[in-house]
């Protein structure tokens, strides 16, 4: 089966029932996507499939046939951080960093929306990404700073 990962074409030949999370981390060396629970509760494994944020521990790899998959490794342009990544650094939105990849992807999708974003919108959009370190305060500030 074939899909694109961060713009690159990937051919995958093993079991289609394997979790996309495991394929990314173990077969494709893309360890930026993390496993926090394996139950679809924490969002640490979030990736984008055709622009939508999903938990990759809940996706069988066969299901991304022909799809565009984006992980945290695809956010920067070469060595240049995206505005959102830079905001996370500037605002102190990453502490231990384990939730950060998933959080960035969920926030990235939020920022694609053309309409205004309130703090409550950001909370709702990030509700599927658990963070234990930050209390979410600076994550919300960082995301909102990208939409002004």
């Amino acid at each position: 089966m074939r899909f694109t990962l961060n713009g690159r074409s990937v051919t995958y030949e093993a079991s289609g029932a394997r979790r996309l999370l495991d394929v990314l981390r173990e077969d494709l060396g893309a360890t930026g996507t993390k496993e926090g629970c394996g139950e679809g509760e924490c969002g640490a494994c979030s990736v984008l499939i055709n622009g939508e944020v999903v938990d990759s521990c809940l996706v069988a790899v066969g299901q991304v046939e022909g799809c565009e998959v984006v992980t945290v490794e695809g956010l920067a342009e070469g060595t240049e951080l995206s505005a959102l990544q830079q905001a996370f650094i500037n605002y102190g939105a990453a502490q231990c960093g384990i939730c950060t990849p998933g959080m960035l992807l969920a926030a990235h999708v939020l920022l694609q929306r053309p309409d205004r974003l309130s703090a409550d919108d950001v909370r709702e959009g990030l509700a599927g990404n658990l963070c234990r370190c930050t209390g979410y305060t600076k994550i919300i500030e960082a995301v909102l700073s990208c939409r002004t």
Partner: protein
Amino acid sequence: MQDVTYLRPETIQDAVQLYRTTPGCRPLAGGTDLMVMLHAGTLRPQPRAVLDVWSLRELKGVRRVGDALEIGAAESYTGIIRSADANRYVPALVAAARTIGAAQIQNRGTLGGNLANASPAGDTLPVLLAYDAVVVTDRRTIRIDNFFLGYRKTALQADELITAVRVPLDRDVVFRKVGTRAAQAISKIVMAVCRAPARVAVGSVAEVPMRAGGAERALAEGDVAGAVGAVAADIRPIDDVRSTADYRRAVTQNVLRELLDAFTRE
């Protein structure tokens, strides 16, 4: 999971055929329940294959069909939330979809999955009961009243595939979920009420999503206090990891009162 075969039919006919002819086969849509159980090894019997119906065009979409709104079994909750028709005709279902999980789960969760799993806590299920929805499968239609037979047991035959849900257009239904937290929450109780015909449907208070018959009879006579009193006897909640029977009973009554008061205020 390596030992599980992944099957991906191109059409609904292929899907139906494969489901009928492949032993130990489980349909896979958004995976929000199945993939967790597959990884944890808790499915009994252990499946030998998963049948991926997620991308079948025939199972997607929200569209008017006669005097009903037809929602594809593999349409995502996000798709339902964004549908202008769904917002117009079945706002309680949209409200329920909004309370499920969070963005990631809404982008993959489906009505087909919610129905097939038949969890007593399924958030859309009391709404479908209150709407008198109809489950459409590859071979027949099943009224929602007849769908839930027991704990996680449905009227579906072993190889029967849900293809759509049809919801009548003319109902006025309200919804409230009491979860364990503000998002990513399993319900402690979840309720949908239709004013006319009188329907009071409650989840997480029995082994199935259920209709509260006593409450409905009182409601049909316009007796709000009577409905609130009767619902306590209709339901059979338990103590579990999430909550207690006493709490569920009290909150079921409180929520019913609140929803019925909202009706009378309109």
